[in-house]
């Protein structure tokens, strides 16, 4: 009796499960047959009236039937769920070329980009980054650097003076070398620093000049360092910054604060040389001016323009764009 009823119930459930076309209908079918008040569960209650032997067999059969139905429901559910999700996704279709704007991001100034990269390379070479004031005294800008008041080189700096103190005693720094002096005055060797920053000259702004521009200088003071270490340091830096195929060379030159002095060139792809900056072995008078014994320590220094690197990299035809702050320029980089 129970067996017949079970078979018919399972068959009916199976039919309805297959016929359920959405998840809700399927849930209803599930409730109808195997829910708490479902028909199969209701049959369980009739088991109490059976003989123990019979009850065991009937119980087993009922459980099998319930398992069968539940299995079919689950199977059907995953089919329906998959097609429901597919339908939902199909309805969510977007045309991603309809997006109208990007998330606004800021643009670091070209000089900052170049400066950060230079700092990173030198930090990697064991240097720290030193900074100092942009308005300086004649001591830091000239005298401590072995450029006395009468020295012909003073004129070549085209200094912008400010109206503080005695005439020509306070000025906008014409190079970042004063930072070298300030560092040597306060720190004991070994010293490995680079000093990036803004510098000033009485250059009228045009396509290739600005009265305010940026330089970076390096200074090493240690035992026994000389021109060979300078040449090696420059080559190492240039390789890291410009690529290892770029070569360097030193040519004798003159700066009051270094002796021997040199200009340094980097090789260009066409086989020529491009002058990048000045360098040299720190003049012993400069060390002595900072309280460092030139007999115990030697030093070397080098410097070059940062703005020019940006100009070279992007082939800018007008350096004034660096201070015009036109967003049509700034947002290109």
């Amino acid at each position: 009796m129970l067996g017949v009823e079970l078979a018919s119930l399972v068959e009916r459930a199976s039919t309805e499960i297959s016929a359920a076309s959405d998840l809700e209908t399927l849930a209803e079918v599930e409730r109808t047959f195997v829910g708490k008040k479902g028909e199969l569960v209701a049959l369980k209650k009739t088991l109490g009236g059976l003989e123990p032997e019979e009850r065991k067999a009937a119980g087993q059969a009922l459980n099998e039937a319930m398992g069968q139905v539940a299995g079919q429901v689950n199977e059907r559910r995953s089919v329906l769920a998959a097609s429901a999700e597919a339908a939902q996704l199909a309805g969510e279709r977007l045309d991603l070329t309809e997006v109208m704007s990007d998330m606004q991001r800021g643009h670091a100034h070209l000089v900052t980009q170049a400066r950060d990269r230079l700092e990173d390379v030198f930090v990697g070479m064991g240097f720290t980054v030193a900074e100092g004031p942009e308005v300086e005294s004649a001591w830091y800008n000239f005298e401590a650097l072995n450029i006395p008041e009468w020295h012909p080189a003073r004129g070549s700096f085209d200094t912008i003076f400010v109206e503080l103190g005695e005439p020509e005693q306070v000025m906008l720094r014409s190079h970042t070398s004063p930072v070298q002096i300030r560092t040597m005055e306060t720190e004991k060797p070994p010293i490995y620093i680079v000093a990036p920053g803004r510098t000033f000259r009485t250059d009228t702004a045009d396509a290739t000049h600005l009265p305010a521009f940026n330089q970076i200088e390096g200074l090493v003071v240690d035992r026994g360092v000389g021109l060979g270490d300078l040449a090696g340091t420059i080559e190492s830096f240039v390789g890291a910054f410009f690529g290892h195929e770029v070569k360097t060379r030193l040519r004798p030159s003159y700066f009051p604060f270094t002796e021997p002095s040199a200009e340094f060139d980097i090789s260009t792809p066409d086989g020529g040389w491009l002058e990048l900056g000045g360098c040299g072995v720190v003049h012993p008078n400069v060390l002595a001016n900072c309280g460092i014994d030139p007999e115990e320590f030697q030093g070397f220094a080098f410097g070059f323009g940062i703005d020019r690197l940006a100009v070279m990299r992007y082939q800018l035809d007008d350096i004034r764009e660096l201070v015009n702050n036109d967003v049509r320029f700034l947002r290109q980089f």
Partner: protein
Amino acid sequence: MKVLLSWLQEFAPGIDGDPVELGEKLSALGLAVEEMTITGQGLDGIVLAKVLELSPHPDADKIQIVQVDSGDGQPLQVCCGAFNMTVGDLIPFATVGTTMPNGMEIGVRKMRGQESNGMCCSATEIGLGDDADGIMLLTDKAAESLIGQPITTALGMETDVLYDLEVNANRPDAMSVAGVARDLAAALGVPFAFPERTVERTGDDASSQATVEIIDPDLCGRFTARVLQNVTVGESPMWIQNRLTALGMRPINSVVDISNYVMLEYGQPNHVFDLDTVPNGHLQVRRAADGETMVTLDEAERTLISRDGVIANESGDAISLAGVMGGLSTEVTDSTTNVLLEMAWWDPPSISRTVKRLNLPSEASTRFRRGADWGDNIDRAMDRFCELIAETGATICPGQIDVPGNTPAQEHNTVRVAKINSVLGTELDAATMVSHLGALGFESSASGDTLTVSVPSYRWDSIGSNAAEFEHNIAEEIGRLHGYEVITKTVPKGEQAGHLSEYQSDRRAVRAVLLGMGCDEIQPMPFLAPGDLALVGLDDDDGVRLSNPLDASESVLRTSLLPGQLKSIAYNQSHRNPPVRFFEIGHVFMPPKEGDLLPDEREFLGIAIAGAEAPAAVEVLNTLASVLALPNVQVRNPDNLPGMHPTRSAEVVIAGRPRGVVGEVAPSVLREYGVEGRVAWLQLDLGEVLGGPHGKRNYTPVSKFPSSDMDLAFSIPNDTGADKVRNTISKAAGKLLVDLDLVDVYRGEGVEDGHRSLAFRLRLQANDRTLSDDEITTTREAVIAAVQKTNKGQLR
């Protein structure tokens, strides 16, 4: 300094070979070749012509009609834009069909309706010197027989190589052809020698015609003079004119040209006096008296100071500004016959100071400032001058007046081989060093590790003021000749790790966050116009003034980043650019603190958001506060922040100290700067902010227990800051409060007049338990009571 290869070869015939390679050798010596030109080539078709007639162009003011004879005796018409010719002048003339050295082709042209059959040439156009002003006029009338001949023949030009060298301030010797030849010969290993000069002398000895007294021997190291008679001022020979022109000097007359020629050749500036204008031929060399005056050759009256040097006559009148410029009263003129030729050595700092003070730079003073030669070179230059002037018919009297002053003394003369190798990074032996030095004229001898070196009189720069400097000077000479390019490159390794300072890292973090928020970084120049600071409500007098600004609009140093940013915004608005949000990290310059010489310089951060209201700037501030973990950031509303919107601005107070301003720029300021719309503005003293307490973060374990949220809205009087209410809530809720946000601000219907509704969301949570309903209720009541008591806030 320019030099011709042929001229160098007069001192060192062995200097020969590929001009480019010779140029590279010069550069490697520290005499950088800025330009190399092959001269006397590519001038085919350019002939000597004579100006026959000059007449105005009927339809043009800036060109004239010139009739020239280009060799056939017939007038040929050309149009010319220069007006320096007179009838009879001999000029270089490019005939029709000529291709000029610069590639220009000369054809028959019509200029404003008038035919032009060729081109009159300037010196520059035919590769002779820098003089592009006007047509080159040949002064040698003897060339008249050469009309129609190639200009190279007429001028005696030969193919030559012209090097334009960058000579550094430490190379007085290289300001001469002979000095460059000496350096190059040393590098090439070829002989260098001064040609012998022979001069016939007649008449009375110079010492019987003139006397010299050096009163200040520190000013003048050596004063020599010779007497020349029967001097006639005329044209100098063409070859001298050509060389002067090539080296960039304009030929003037025989005396001046020879003077310049000798200066260029030997690096020895010289001066000629009309001896008949010097009473009894007596000269005194002394410092000027303060306020003393004299008229220099340029007819300007100069007022002197006691540091200037002068040459005076026997009555004490200054007749020459020593080493800088001669005096008008003793000038050599067409009527001069007797000349006193002076060659001296002047103290470089003295000359430098006078040149700078009077702004009188010259070829002569440039050489004296760098330190001319006080030795035999003077005698050689004397001989050369006399030889050349004798060829113009002058007579040279025997004898040379030669009065010594104080020449530079070489106080240090030993260097250590090991130290030089250490400075250069080389391993040279003493013999090699002696050899390099010898080639450059530094005599030296080795004894163990020590060299004894004597500096030649043409290298004043190398003497040095102390032993260490001397060693470095000598190291440079050895290194130069050894060759910088062959020094082994090594990389020293410091003991410490490279790193950015905490300040520098933090500054980068600030920049990165601002970039992420869509702010573009700008770098305006720090110069302002007078009045710019006043326009933003600051004291204009606080702005440090520049003494020599390029322009009045760039004559004041900024004390705030605001003016520069407003100018940048206005610039972008005027170009119809998209809306801008800018930030800048830069220095500002406050007046010096009491007792300081330098301004109180600070690094500021400024952020301007165009088109935004004040809260946008506060949001930036809050984000920065979070990035840097700034403790206790408050915005306070004081009266009248300079340049700021009176009711939409606040002072930023961090850990109890004022560090900047936040809010909106005052509409009146925006109008002054031509900025449209609102501008949200935040300026912080970045140096102080990052120098102060920040970055301290304490880890709190994330609670594993549920949290409970509650929203409380209060009606709060308008003059009570939301931050005050926030503080009250924070204190009252105590440790259970893990989050507190202001989620709504409402003004309007349903809120009492003079009040607004502030809605806060509180999240309560404990680390060790689930909060009980009682605890939550108690906290809620405590918060409500506290806001009521402290902020007069009613729960809504």
